[in-house]
């Protein structure tokens, strides 16, 4: 399991697309928003938490199809299926690798991008906390979507269609934590809901992902 994680991380670093692409996309989305809505600091600081969450979500989505597609194409997935690793373990590790290469950098970059959107000072902590809690759920849910569509050629668009509705609860509670935090309100309820969704998804979804992967492999 550790070997699989290390291999995926190493591949992400060497292929160059892993850390870089998602982050660059996040940056571009954040930069484009002021062009779209106008440069008033007041408006920007009001929508900053939501924009950061949407940007992180889209950056996450962008890199999902790489979770299984490469291993599917070069036959590694077949070989992994005959290896002494449980399929549930494989999908969990894949999701973890995706989070480390995509989710975590987004969390760390969010404060810097918050400056560009004049995020209120009280918001930084809660934007980071909410993303830190929410991005694992995005990775795990995305892994399920990637497993569903792995056998389809050009399944990327379909995967977005399947995954985005599943992202709704995470997005709502995550952005709510960030928004309330930025406005200096109490964040307890959405924070607990967000944590619940994350841990629930991490605990249960790998079973569904493993099941659909097995179906796709046969």
């Amino acid at each position: 399991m550790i070997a699989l994680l290390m291999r995926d991380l190493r591949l992400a670093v060497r292929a160059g697309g892993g850390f870089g692409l998602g982050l660059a996309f996040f940056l571009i989305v954040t930069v484009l928003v002021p062009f779209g809505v106008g440069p008033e600091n007041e408006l920007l600081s009001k929508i900053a938490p939501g924009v950061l969450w949407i940007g992180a979500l889209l950056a996450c989505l962008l890199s999902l199809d790489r979770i299984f597609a490469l291993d599917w194409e070069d036959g590694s997935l077949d070989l992994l299926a005959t290896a002494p690793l449980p399929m549930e373990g494989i999908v969990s590790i894949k999701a973890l690798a995706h989070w480390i290469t995509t989710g975590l950098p987004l969390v760390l970059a969010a404060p810097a991008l918050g400056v560009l959107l004049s995020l209120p000072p009280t918001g930084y902590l809660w934007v980071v906390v909410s993303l830190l809690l929410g991005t694992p759920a995005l990775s795990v849910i995305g892994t399920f979507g990637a497993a569903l569509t792995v056998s389809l050629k050009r399944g990327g668009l379909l995967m977005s269609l399947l995954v985005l509705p599943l992202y709704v609860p995470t997005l709502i509670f995550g952005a709510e934590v960030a928004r309330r935090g930025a406005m200096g309100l109490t964040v307890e309820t959405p924070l607990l809901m967000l944590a619940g969704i994350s841990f629930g998804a991490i605990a249960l979804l790998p079973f569904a992902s493993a099941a659909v992967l097995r179906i796709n492999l046969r």
Partner: protein
Amino acid sequence: MELSVKNLAVARGGVPVLEGVNFALRAGRALVLRGPNGAGKTTLLRTIAGLQPAFEGEVQGAEDRIAYAGHSDGIKAMLSVAENLRFWAQVFNRSEIDGALDGFNLRDLEDRNAGSLSAGQKRRLGLARLMVSGRQVWILDEPTVSLDAASVALFAEAVRRHLAEGGSALMATHIDLGLDEAEVFDVSPYRAKPRVSAADEAFL
């Protein structure tokens, strides 16, 4: 413990291609599958490897004992030859890769990126993966594709050593490897009678 296949029927896309297949593969033996293209050799091997469910019948003694090498080698272009091998060794809870590097003459390529290898060299790396797996039963689908004569000899030598150590091998190949221990198993007589797939049966 032997690998045995009892009254096995295998299906491709839901339609049975082979049926009534029976054989046993003892330790130290090799079995070479023969048959025309499309006869169902790959499907049979994938079923025995557990990658797809059997249509009928059962496979015994394959669980957690097989190492499978299919048409694609599962090599990561961005990793070096040694890293590729070490990864698969770790997946199978082992660490030794020197034997495999020497056995398939990959020592000189050890630090090369796998992406820069030729097709034949990649194939050798894919086969070397079997040696690091430490599994007893090798299941090989057209293992000698894109190998030159010298490499085929290396491969035959590796199989011979594997058999001598008490392993066994099941392969689909058209090339004579010169293995004395190998029996030939022709799949053509087991062609499934034309019938509809299980999924369709309910609709007729």
